[in-house]
Protein backbone atom coordinates (compact mmCIF):
# COMPACT_ATOMS: atom_id res chain seq x y z
CA UNK A 1 0.00 0.00 0.00
CA UNK A 2 1.19 3.53 -0.73
CA UNK A 3 2.59 5.25 2.28
CA UNK A 4 0.32 8.24 1.70
CA UNK A 5 -2.70 5.95 1.58
CA UNK A 6 -2.66 5.15 5.28
CA UNK A 7 -5.89 3.95 6.81
CA UNK A 8 -6.10 6.94 9.15
CA UNK A 9 -5.23 9.51 6.46
CA UNK A 10 -8.76 10.83 6.00
CA UNK A 11 -9.81 10.38 9.60
CA UNK A 12 -10.57 13.40 11.75
CA UNK A 13 -11.08 11.47 14.99
CA UNK A 14 -10.58 7.73 15.18
CA UNK A 15 -12.00 5.17 17.58
CA UNK A 16 -14.27 6.33 20.35
CA UNK A 17 -12.83 9.83 20.05
CA UNK A 18 -15.20 10.19 17.09
CA UNK A 19 -18.26 9.99 19.34
CA UNK A 20 -20.57 12.99 19.39
CA UNK A 21 -20.42 14.96 22.60
CA UNK A 22 -22.93 13.88 25.21
CA UNK A 23 -24.40 17.40 25.25
CA UNK A 24 -25.06 17.32 21.49
CA UNK A 25 -26.45 13.84 21.76
CA UNK A 26 -28.81 14.68 24.62
CA UNK A 27 -30.29 17.61 22.71
CA UNK A 28 -30.68 15.60 19.49
CA UNK A 29 -32.26 12.62 21.23
CA UNK A 30 -34.70 14.84 23.09
CA UNK A 31 -36.82 15.24 19.94
CA UNK A 32 -37.41 11.50 19.72
CA UNK A 33 -40.61 10.29 21.27
CA UNK A 34 -40.28 8.18 24.35
CA UNK A 35 -41.22 4.55 23.86
CA UNK A 36 -43.75 3.20 26.26
CA UNK A 37 -43.43 -0.55 26.08
CA UNK A 38 -43.13 -2.28 29.41
CA UNK A 39 -41.01 -4.89 27.66
CA UNK A 40 -38.33 -2.34 26.80
CA UNK A 41 -36.11 -2.59 29.85
CA UNK A 42 -33.72 0.27 29.04
CA UNK A 43 -34.35 3.99 28.93
CA UNK A 44 -32.62 6.10 26.27
CA UNK A 45 -32.13 8.97 28.69
CA UNK A 46 -29.74 6.87 30.73
CA UNK A 47 -27.30 6.51 27.79
CA UNK A 48 -27.20 2.73 28.18
CA UNK A 49 -24.67 0.69 26.22
CA UNK A 50 -27.35 -1.35 24.47
CA UNK A 51 -31.12 -1.72 24.46
CA UNK A 52 -32.80 -4.64 26.19
CA UNK A 53 -36.21 -6.02 25.24
CA UNK A 54 -38.01 -8.64 27.29
CA UNK A 55 -39.20 -11.53 25.11
CA UNK A 56 -40.53 -13.71 27.92
CA UNK A 57 -40.25 -14.05 31.67
CA UNK A 58 -36.88 -15.75 31.33
CA UNK A 59 -35.47 -14.26 28.14
CA UNK A 60 -34.51 -10.76 27.01
CA UNK A 61 -32.75 -9.72 23.80
CA UNK A 62 -29.90 -7.21 23.94
CA UNK A 63 -29.02 -5.19 20.84
CA UNK A 64 -26.31 -2.70 20.05
CA UNK A 65 -24.70 -0.99 17.10
CA UNK A 66 -21.24 0.48 17.24
CA UNK A 67 -18.82 1.59 14.54
CA UNK A 68 -16.09 4.18 14.15
CA UNK A 69 -13.24 5.35 11.91
CA UNK A 70 -9.80 3.75 12.34
CA UNK A 71 -7.54 4.99 15.13
CA UNK A 72 -4.47 3.22 13.71
CA UNK A 73 -3.19 2.13 10.31
CA UNK A 74 -3.10 -1.66 10.65
CA UNK A 75 -6.41 -2.86 9.13
CA UNK A 76 -6.44 -6.23 10.94
CA UNK A 77 -5.92 -4.58 14.33
CA UNK A 78 -8.54 -1.96 13.51
CA UNK A 79 -11.03 -4.73 12.70
CA UNK A 80 -10.28 -6.49 15.98
CA UNK A 81 -10.56 -3.32 18.05
CA UNK A 82 -13.82 -2.17 16.41
CA UNK A 83 -15.38 -5.60 16.97
CA UNK A 84 -14.14 -5.90 20.58
CA UNK A 85 -15.52 -2.42 21.23
CA UNK A 86 -18.94 -3.22 19.72
CA UNK A 87 -19.26 -6.57 21.49
CA UNK A 88 -18.34 -4.88 24.76
CA UNK A 89 -21.74 -3.14 24.79
CA UNK A 90 -23.38 -6.57 25.03
CA UNK A 91 -21.15 -7.61 27.95
CA UNK A 92 -21.78 -4.24 29.58
CA UNK A 93 -25.46 -5.19 29.92
CA UNK A 94 -24.50 -8.44 31.63
CA UNK A 95 -25.24 -10.49 28.49
CA UNK A 96 -23.33 -12.70 26.06
CA UNK A 97 -23.23 -12.01 22.31
CA UNK A 98 -24.99 -14.49 20.02
CA UNK A 99 -25.14 -12.84 16.60
CA UNK A 100 -23.17 -10.11 14.87
CA UNK A 101 -23.53 -8.21 11.58
CA UNK A 102 -20.72 -6.25 9.95
CA UNK A 103 -21.18 -2.60 9.09
CA UNK A 104 -18.48 -1.10 6.90
CA UNK A 105 -18.00 2.12 4.94
CA UNK A 106 -14.91 2.63 2.81
CA UNK A 107 -13.41 5.16 0.35
CA UNK A 108 -13.19 2.53 -2.39
CA UNK A 109 -12.05 5.01 -5.10
CA UNK A 110 -8.84 5.87 -3.23
CA UNK A 111 -7.46 2.36 -3.58
CA UNK A 112 -6.51 0.03 -6.42
CA UNK A 113 -8.55 -3.14 -6.68
CA UNK A 114 -5.90 -5.32 -5.05
CA UNK A 115 -5.17 -2.82 -2.26
CA UNK A 116 -8.86 -2.61 -1.56
CA UNK A 117 -9.16 -6.38 -1.34
CA UNK A 118 -6.21 -6.53 1.05
CA UNK A 119 -7.41 -3.78 3.35
CA UNK A 120 -11.05 -4.80 3.47
CA UNK A 121 -10.20 -8.47 3.93
CA UNK A 122 -7.91 -7.59 6.82
CA UNK A 123 -10.46 -5.37 8.58
CA UNK A 124 -13.22 -7.97 8.20
CA UNK A 125 -10.90 -10.81 9.22
CA UNK A 126 -9.98 -8.88 12.38
CA UNK A 127 -13.66 -8.39 13.20
CA UNK A 128 -14.55 -12.00 12.36
CA UNK A 129 -11.77 -13.35 14.57
CA UNK A 130 -13.08 -11.39 17.56
CA UNK A 131 -16.69 -12.42 16.90
CA UNK A 132 -15.53 -16.03 16.75
CA UNK A 133 -13.57 -15.64 19.99
CA UNK A 134 -16.70 -14.27 21.66
CA UNK A 135 -18.62 -17.38 20.67
CA UNK A 136 -21.09 -15.39 18.55
CA UNK A 137 -21.92 -15.99 14.90
CA UNK A 138 -21.15 -13.50 12.16
CA UNK A 139 -24.34 -13.67 10.15
CA UNK A 140 -24.15 -10.90 7.56
CA UNK A 141 -23.59 -7.20 7.15
CA UNK A 142 -23.86 -4.06 5.08
CA UNK A 143 -21.25 -2.08 3.17
CA UNK A 144 -21.24 1.34 1.51
CA UNK A 145 -18.79 3.70 -0.18
CA UNK A 146 -17.83 6.55 2.10
CA UNK A 147 -15.24 9.32 2.15
CA UNK A 148 -13.86 8.15 5.49
CA UNK A 149 -13.41 4.49 6.44
CA UNK A 150 -15.63 3.17 9.25
CA UNK A 151 -16.16 -0.32 10.62
CA UNK A 152 -18.10 -1.92 13.43
CA UNK A 153 -20.79 -4.40 14.33
CA UNK A 154 -24.44 -4.63 15.05
CA UNK A 155 -24.53 -7.25 17.78
CA UNK A 156 -27.26 -9.22 19.52
CA UNK A 157 -27.13 -11.12 22.77
CA UNK A 158 -29.48 -12.75 25.22
CA UNK A 159 -29.83 -12.53 28.99
CA UNK A 160 -32.31 -13.38 31.72
CA UNK A 161 -34.45 -10.24 32.23
CA UNK A 162 -33.64 -10.22 35.95
CA UNK A 163 -29.91 -10.40 35.26
CA UNK A 164 -29.74 -7.29 33.06
CA UNK A 165 -27.13 -4.86 34.38
CA UNK A 166 -27.56 -1.17 33.62
CA UNK A 167 -26.01 2.17 34.59
CA UNK A 168 -28.57 2.42 37.37
CA UNK A 169 -28.69 0.24 40.45
CA UNK A 170 -25.41 1.09 42.17
CA UNK A 171 -25.85 1.34 45.95
CA UNK A 172 -24.55 3.67 48.64
CA UNK A 173 -21.03 2.57 49.61
CA UNK A 174 -20.48 0.37 46.55
CA UNK A 175 -16.90 0.06 45.35
CA UNK A 176 -16.08 0.82 41.73
CA UNK A 177 -13.88 -1.61 39.78
CA UNK A 178 -12.47 -0.95 36.31
CA UNK A 179 -11.10 -3.90 34.31
CA UNK A 180 -8.70 -2.10 31.93
CA UNK A 181 -6.24 0.81 32.33
CA UNK A 182 -7.27 4.27 31.10
CA UNK A 183 -5.53 6.46 28.55
CA UNK A 184 -6.16 4.90 25.11
CA UNK A 185 -6.78 8.34 23.56
CA UNK A 186 -3.54 9.80 24.86
CA UNK A 187 -1.61 6.60 24.09
CA UNK A 188 -2.94 6.52 20.52
CA UNK A 189 -1.62 10.05 19.96
CA UNK A 190 1.70 8.84 21.38
CA UNK A 191 1.60 5.91 18.95
CA UNK A 192 0.86 8.24 16.04
CA UNK A 193 3.69 10.55 17.11
CA UNK A 194 6.02 7.53 17.45
CA UNK A 195 6.59 8.26 21.12
CA UNK A 196 5.44 4.93 22.55
CA UNK A 197 7.91 2.32 23.72
CA UNK A 198 7.32 -1.09 22.20
CA UNK A 199 6.12 -2.43 25.56
CA UNK A 200 3.59 0.38 25.93
CA UNK A 201 2.33 -0.11 22.37
CA UNK A 202 1.85 -3.82 23.08
CA UNK A 203 0.05 -3.04 26.32
CA UNK A 204 -2.25 -0.64 24.44
CA UNK A 205 -3.02 -3.01 21.56
CA UNK A 206 -3.51 -6.01 23.86
CA UNK A 207 -6.06 -4.09 25.88
CA UNK A 208 -7.94 -2.54 22.96
CA UNK A 209 -8.29 -5.90 21.18
CA UNK A 210 -9.24 -7.71 24.40
CA UNK A 211 -12.87 -8.83 24.73
CA UNK A 212 -14.55 -7.82 27.98
CA UNK A 213 -15.90 -11.38 28.20
CA UNK A 214 -13.39 -12.58 30.77
CA UNK A 215 -13.90 -9.52 33.00
CA UNK A 216 -17.66 -10.19 33.04
CA UNK A 217 -17.05 -13.88 33.64
CA UNK A 218 -14.91 -13.03 36.70
CA UNK A 219 -18.00 -11.43 38.25
CA UNK A 220 -20.44 -14.18 37.22
CA UNK A 221 -21.21 -15.38 40.77
CA UNK A 222 -20.90 -11.92 42.39
CA UNK A 223 -23.72 -9.51 43.07
CA UNK A 224 -22.97 -6.72 40.59
CA UNK A 225 -25.34 -3.78 41.15
CA UNK A 226 -24.54 -1.70 38.07
CA UNK A 227 -22.33 -2.14 35.03
CA UNK A 228 -21.16 -0.23 31.98
CA UNK A 229 -18.06 -0.02 29.83
CA UNK A 230 -15.76 2.98 29.63
CA UNK A 231 -15.69 4.29 26.07
CA UNK A 232 -16.10 7.65 24.38
CA UNK A 233 -17.22 9.68 27.40
CA UNK A 234 -14.13 8.69 29.38
CA UNK A 235 -13.92 7.47 32.97
CA UNK A 236 -15.57 10.59 34.37
CA UNK A 237 -18.37 10.70 31.80
CA UNK A 238 -19.34 7.09 32.30
CA UNK A 239 -19.10 7.39 36.08
CA UNK A 240 -21.36 10.42 35.90
CA UNK A 241 -23.92 8.46 33.85
CA UNK A 242 -23.78 5.62 36.38
CA UNK A 243 -24.01 7.96 39.37
CA UNK A 244 -26.90 9.89 37.84
CA UNK A 245 -28.87 6.77 36.90
CA UNK A 246 -28.25 5.33 40.39
CA UNK A 247 -29.05 8.54 42.30
CA UNK A 248 -25.57 8.69 43.84
CA UNK A 249 -22.22 10.49 43.61
CA UNK A 250 -18.98 8.85 42.51
CA UNK A 251 -15.65 9.36 44.29
CA UNK A 252 -12.44 8.58 42.40
CA UNK A 253 -9.22 7.93 44.27
CA UNK A 254 -6.82 9.16 41.57
CA UNK A 255 -3.74 7.28 42.76
CA UNK A 256 -5.67 4.02 42.48
CA UNK A 257 -6.62 4.45 38.83
CA UNK A 258 -4.23 2.47 36.66
CA UNK A 259 -3.27 4.10 33.41
CA UNK A 260 -1.27 2.83 30.45
CA UNK A 261 2.48 3.21 30.90
CA UNK A 262 3.83 6.55 29.64
CA UNK A 263 0.44 8.26 29.30
CA UNK A 264 0.80 10.53 32.34
CA UNK A 265 3.98 11.96 30.84
CA UNK A 266 2.45 12.21 27.37
CA UNK A 267 -0.64 14.01 28.66
CA UNK A 268 1.62 16.43 30.50
CA UNK A 269 3.39 17.18 27.21
CA UNK A 270 0.16 17.96 25.38
CA UNK A 271 -0.72 14.62 23.78
CA UNK A 272 -4.36 15.12 24.67
CA UNK A 273 -7.04 14.22 22.08
CA UNK A 274 -9.82 16.64 21.16
CA UNK A 275 -12.34 14.20 22.66
CA UNK A 276 -10.83 14.71 26.10
CA UNK A 277 -11.52 18.45 25.86
CA UNK A 278 -15.05 17.79 24.57
CA UNK A 279 -15.69 15.49 27.52
CA UNK A 280 -14.27 18.12 29.87
CA UNK A 281 -16.74 20.64 28.42
CA UNK A 282 -19.64 18.21 28.84
CA UNK A 283 -18.84 16.90 32.30
CA UNK A 284 -16.85 19.51 34.22
CA UNK A 285 -20.11 20.93 35.58
CA UNK A 286 -20.59 17.60 37.39
CA UNK A 287 -16.95 17.12 38.39
CA UNK A 288 -15.01 18.31 41.42
CA UNK A 289 -11.23 18.01 41.42
CA UNK A 290 -9.27 18.17 44.63
CA UNK A 291 -6.46 20.74 44.46
CA UNK A 292 -3.90 17.93 44.61
CA UNK A 293 -5.05 16.41 41.32
CA UNK A 294 -2.53 17.20 38.56
CA UNK A 295 -3.78 18.37 35.18
CA UNK A 296 -2.60 15.20 33.42
CA UNK A 297 -4.85 13.10 35.65
CA UNK A 298 -7.80 15.33 34.81
CA UNK A 299 -7.02 14.95 31.10
CA UNK A 300 -6.70 11.17 31.44
CA UNK A 301 -9.96 10.79 33.34
CA UNK A 302 -11.72 12.77 30.58
CA UNK A 303 -9.82 10.85 27.87
CA UNK A 304 -12.16 9.01 25.46
CA UNK A 305 -11.49 5.28 25.66
CA UNK A 306 -11.55 3.01 22.64
CA UNK A 307 -12.61 -0.50 23.67
CA UNK A 308 -12.18 0.39 27.34
CA UNK A 309 -12.81 -1.84 30.31
CA UNK A 310 -15.95 -2.78 32.22
CA UNK A 311 -16.90 -0.52 35.11
CA UNK A 312 -18.55 -2.47 37.96
CA UNK A 313 -20.42 -1.24 41.03
CA UNK A 314 -20.57 -3.82 43.77
CA UNK A 315 -20.24 -4.22 47.54
CA UNK A 316 -16.75 -3.51 48.90
CA UNK A 317 -16.14 -7.11 49.97
CA UNK A 318 -17.27 -8.44 46.58
CA UNK A 319 -15.11 -5.81 44.85
CA UNK A 320 -12.05 -7.21 46.59
CA UNK A 321 -12.86 -10.69 45.32
CA UNK A 322 -13.41 -9.33 41.82
CA UNK A 323 -10.12 -7.39 41.92
CA UNK A 324 -8.23 -10.50 42.97
CA UNK A 325 -9.74 -12.51 40.13
CA UNK A 326 -9.13 -9.82 37.50
CA UNK A 327 -5.50 -9.40 38.57
CA UNK A 328 -5.12 -13.18 38.56
CA UNK A 329 -6.27 -13.19 34.92
CA UNK A 330 -3.52 -10.69 34.16
CA UNK A 331 -5.88 -7.77 33.62
CA UNK A 332 -4.66 -4.30 34.62
CA UNK A 333 -7.69 -3.70 36.83
CA UNK A 334 -8.18 -0.92 39.40
CA UNK A 335 -10.35 -0.27 42.40
CA UNK A 336 -11.06 3.29 41.30
CA UNK A 337 -13.30 4.51 44.11
CA UNK A 338 -16.80 4.31 45.51
CA UNK A 339 -20.38 5.48 45.18
CA UNK A 340 -21.84 7.57 47.97
CA UNK A 341 -25.38 8.74 48.66
CA UNK A 342 -25.47 12.51 49.17
CA UNK A 343 -27.88 15.37 48.70
CA UNK A 344 -26.95 16.07 45.11
CA UNK A 345 -26.65 13.29 42.54
CA UNK A 346 -24.46 12.62 39.50
CA UNK A 347 -21.37 14.36 40.86
CA UNK A 348 -17.94 12.88 40.23
CA UNK A 349 -15.40 13.85 42.88
CA UNK A 350 -11.73 13.21 42.09
CA UNK A 351 -9.35 13.11 45.06
Amino acid sequence: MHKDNKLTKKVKAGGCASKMSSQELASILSVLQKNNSENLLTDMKNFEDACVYKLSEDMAVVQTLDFFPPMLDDPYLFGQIAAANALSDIYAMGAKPTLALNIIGFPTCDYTQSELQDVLHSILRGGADKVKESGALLAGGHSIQLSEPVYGLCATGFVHPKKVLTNGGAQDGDSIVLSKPVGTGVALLGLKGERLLKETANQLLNNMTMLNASALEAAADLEVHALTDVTGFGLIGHLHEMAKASGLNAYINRTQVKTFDQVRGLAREGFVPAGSYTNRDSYSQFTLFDKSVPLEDEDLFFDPQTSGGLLFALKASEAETLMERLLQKGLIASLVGKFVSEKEIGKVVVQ
Partner: protein
Amino acid sequence: MSEKNSEINQIDLRGLACPEPVLRTKKILDQKSTSPVSLLVDTDVTVKNLERLCSANKAQILESQKVNDHFRVLIAPTSKDSSKEEKKDGTIVGPVVFISKDSFGTGSSPMDHDFSSHLLNMFLQSLLATGHQIDAILMANSGVKIMADSAFKDVIAAFESAGTKVFACGLCVEYYKIKEQVPTEKITNMFAICEYLMTSTRVIEP
Protein backbone atom coordinates in the same frame (compact mmCIF):
# COMPACT_ATOMS: atom_id res chain seq x y z
CA MET B 1 9.84 28.40 8.61
CA SER B 2 9.55 32.00 7.47
CA GLU B 3 11.94 34.45 8.95
CA LYS B 4 11.72 38.20 8.68
CA ASN B 5 14.62 40.35 9.75
CA SER B 6 14.48 41.49 13.37
CA GLU B 7 10.96 40.17 13.62
CA ILE B 8 9.60 37.25 15.56
CA ASN B 9 9.95 33.86 13.93
CA GLN B 10 6.63 32.65 12.63
CA ILE B 11 5.96 28.97 12.11
CA ASP B 12 2.87 27.73 10.34
CA LEU B 13 1.57 24.52 11.88
CA ARG B 14 -1.83 24.70 10.22
CA GLY B 15 -3.14 21.68 8.34
CA LEU B 16 -1.12 19.27 10.47
CA ALA B 17 -2.98 16.50 12.26
CA CYS B 18 -2.61 16.02 15.99
CA PRO B 19 -0.05 15.31 17.53
CA GLU B 20 2.20 16.77 14.79
CA PRO B 21 1.95 20.43 15.95
CA VAL B 22 2.96 19.36 19.47
CA LEU B 23 5.89 17.30 18.17
CA ARG B 24 7.18 20.20 16.04
CA THR B 25 6.82 22.69 18.87
CA LYS B 26 8.68 20.31 21.17
CA LYS B 27 11.57 20.34 18.70
CA ILE B 28 11.61 24.13 18.81
CA LEU B 29 11.66 24.12 22.62
CA ASP B 30 14.43 21.51 22.62
CA GLN B 31 16.66 23.86 20.63
CA LYS B 32 16.95 25.88 23.85
CA SER B 33 16.67 29.14 21.96
CA THR B 34 15.41 32.03 24.08
CA SER B 35 13.81 34.19 21.40
CA PRO B 36 10.03 34.09 21.19
CA VAL B 37 8.32 32.14 18.40
CA SER B 38 4.90 32.77 16.92
CA LEU B 39 2.96 29.65 15.96
CA LEU B 40 -0.09 29.42 13.73
CA VAL B 41 -2.43 26.52 14.52
CA ASP B 42 -5.89 25.41 13.40
CA THR B 43 -7.80 24.58 16.55
CA ASP B 44 -8.15 25.56 20.18
CA VAL B 45 -7.42 21.92 21.04
CA THR B 46 -3.91 22.44 19.69
CA VAL B 47 -3.66 25.69 21.68
CA LYS B 48 -4.54 23.80 24.87
CA ASN B 49 -2.06 21.06 24.07
CA LEU B 50 0.65 23.68 23.49
CA GLU B 51 -0.19 25.14 26.90
CA ARG B 52 0.47 21.72 28.43
CA LEU B 53 3.65 21.23 26.44
CA CYS B 54 5.00 24.64 27.47
CA SER B 55 4.10 24.09 31.11
CA ALA B 56 5.93 20.72 31.09
CA ASN B 57 8.97 22.30 29.43
CA LYS B 58 9.08 25.46 31.53
CA ALA B 59 8.34 27.54 28.47
CA GLN B 60 5.82 30.32 28.53
CA ILE B 61 2.85 31.25 26.41
CA LEU B 62 3.05 35.03 26.11
CA GLU B 63 -0.08 35.44 24.09
CA SER B 64 -2.65 33.36 22.28
CA GLN B 65 -5.37 34.83 20.13
CA LYS B 66 -7.89 33.84 17.52
CA VAL B 67 -7.19 35.32 14.11
CA ASN B 68 -9.97 34.66 11.58
CA ASP B 69 -10.21 30.88 11.30
CA HIS B 70 -7.02 30.01 13.12
CA PHE B 71 -5.03 30.75 16.26
CA ARG B 72 -1.77 32.57 16.82
CA VAL B 73 0.27 31.45 19.83
CA LEU B 74 3.33 33.37 20.95
CA ILE B 75 5.69 31.26 23.01
CA ALA B 76 8.86 32.11 24.89
CA PRO B 77 11.12 29.07 25.27
CA THR B 78 12.71 30.41 28.45
CA SER B 79 15.35 28.29 30.09
CA LYS B 80 14.70 28.86 33.76
CA ASP B 81 16.78 27.24 36.45
CA SER B 82 15.20 23.81 36.67
CA SER B 83 16.33 23.19 40.24
CA LYS B 84 14.01 25.89 41.47
CA GLU B 85 11.20 24.48 43.53
CA GLU B 86 8.25 25.65 41.59
CA LYS B 87 4.85 24.07 41.56
CA LYS B 88 3.00 24.59 38.28
CA ASP B 89 -0.45 23.03 38.07
CA GLY B 90 0.92 20.28 40.30
CA THR B 91 3.00 18.99 37.40
CA ILE B 92 6.24 19.34 39.32
CA VAL B 93 6.49 17.82 42.75
CA GLY B 94 8.74 18.85 45.58
CA PRO B 95 11.43 16.65 47.15
CA VAL B 96 10.72 12.94 47.38
CA VAL B 97 12.46 10.24 49.41
CA PHE B 98 13.31 7.08 47.50
CA ILE B 99 13.91 4.08 49.78
CA SER B 100 15.17 1.08 47.80
CA LYS B 101 16.41 -1.02 50.74
CA ASP B 102 15.55 -1.57 54.39
CA SER B 103 18.84 -0.17 55.64
CA PHE B 104 20.73 3.12 55.65
CA GLY B 105 23.58 3.89 53.25
CA THR B 106 25.69 1.20 51.60
CA GLY B 107 28.26 -1.32 52.66
CA SER B 108 26.70 -2.58 55.87
CA SER B 109 27.14 -6.30 56.39
CA PRO B 110 24.10 -8.46 57.15
CA MET B 111 25.32 -8.64 60.75
CA ASP B 112 24.92 -4.88 61.13
CA HIS B 113 21.41 -4.93 59.79
CA ASP B 114 19.75 -3.97 63.07
CA PHE B 115 21.97 -0.94 63.47
CA SER B 116 21.50 0.06 59.84
CA SER B 117 17.74 -0.23 60.14
CA HIS B 118 17.85 1.90 63.27
CA LEU B 119 19.85 4.51 61.35
CA LEU B 120 17.27 4.58 58.58
CA ASN B 121 14.59 5.17 61.18
CA MET B 122 16.60 7.99 62.76
CA PHE B 123 17.20 9.49 59.34
CA LEU B 124 13.47 9.60 58.60
CA GLN B 125 12.70 11.12 62.00
CA SER B 126 15.37 13.77 61.54
CA LEU B 127 14.17 14.55 58.04
CA LEU B 128 10.67 15.03 59.41
CA ALA B 129 12.02 17.23 62.17
CA THR B 130 13.66 19.61 59.68
CA GLY B 131 10.15 20.70 58.83
CA HIS B 132 10.90 20.73 55.10
CA GLN B 133 7.98 19.58 52.99
CA ILE B 134 8.50 16.10 51.52
CA ASP B 135 5.96 15.38 48.81
CA ALA B 136 6.28 11.62 48.75
CA ILE B 137 8.08 8.62 50.19
CA LEU B 138 8.57 5.96 47.51
CA MET B 139 9.58 2.45 48.47
CA ALA B 140 10.89 -0.35 46.30
CA ASN B 141 12.86 -3.57 46.68
CA SER B 142 13.51 -4.42 50.37
CA GLY B 143 12.69 -0.77 51.17
CA VAL B 144 9.01 -1.79 51.26
CA LYS B 145 9.71 -3.92 54.34
CA ILE B 146 9.65 -0.85 56.58
CA MET B 147 5.90 -0.72 55.92
CA ALA B 148 5.58 -3.93 57.92
CA ASP B 149 8.12 -2.95 60.58
CA SER B 150 6.41 -1.67 63.75
CA ALA B 151 9.47 0.49 64.55
CA PHE B 152 8.70 2.62 61.47
CA LYS B 153 4.96 2.84 62.01
CA ASP B 154 4.98 6.13 63.90
CA VAL B 155 7.42 8.02 61.68
CA ILE B 156 5.54 7.00 58.52
CA ALA B 157 2.24 8.06 60.08
CA ALA B 158 3.81 11.38 61.09
CA PHE B 159 4.99 12.01 57.53
CA GLU B 160 1.50 11.26 56.24
CA SER B 161 -0.12 13.69 58.63
CA ALA B 162 2.38 16.28 57.42
CA GLY B 163 0.98 15.78 53.91
CA THR B 164 3.55 13.34 52.55
CA LYS B 165 2.20 10.63 50.27
CA VAL B 166 3.52 7.13 50.89
CA PHE B 167 3.81 4.58 48.10
CA ALA B 168 5.26 1.07 47.97
CA CYS B 169 6.06 -0.96 44.86
CA GLY B 170 3.36 -3.63 44.52
CA LEU B 171 5.62 -6.29 43.07
CA CYS B 172 8.05 -5.84 45.98
CA VAL B 173 5.26 -5.97 48.55
CA GLU B 174 4.15 -9.27 47.07
CA TYR B 175 7.68 -10.63 46.89
CA TYR B 176 8.30 -9.91 50.58
CA LYS B 177 4.82 -11.27 51.43
CA ILE B 178 3.71 -8.21 53.40
CA LYS B 179 0.59 -7.47 51.35
CA GLU B 180 -1.61 -7.66 54.47
CA GLN B 181 0.37 -4.92 56.23
CA VAL B 182 0.27 -2.43 53.35
CA PRO B 183 -3.04 -0.66 52.63
CA THR B 184 -4.01 -1.01 48.97
CA GLU B 185 -4.09 2.74 48.37
CA LYS B 186 -0.35 2.81 49.12
CA ILE B 187 0.48 0.18 46.53
CA THR B 188 1.88 1.52 43.30
CA ASN B 189 3.99 0.28 40.39
CA MET B 190 7.47 1.00 39.15
CA PHE B 191 6.17 3.24 36.42
CA ALA B 192 4.42 5.55 38.88
CA ILE B 193 7.58 5.60 41.00
CA CYS B 194 9.63 6.62 37.95
CA GLU B 195 7.10 9.34 37.14
CA TYR B 196 7.59 10.74 40.65
CA LEU B 197 11.36 10.55 40.42
CA MET B 198 11.40 12.30 37.04
CA THR B 199 9.08 15.12 38.02
CA SER B 200 10.31 15.87 41.50
CA THR B 201 12.65 18.75 42.17
CA ARG B 202 14.94 16.60 44.32
CA VAL B 203 15.29 12.91 45.11
CA ILE B 204 16.69 11.93 48.50
CA GLU B 205 18.08 8.42 48.85
CA PRO B 206 19.06 7.42 52.37
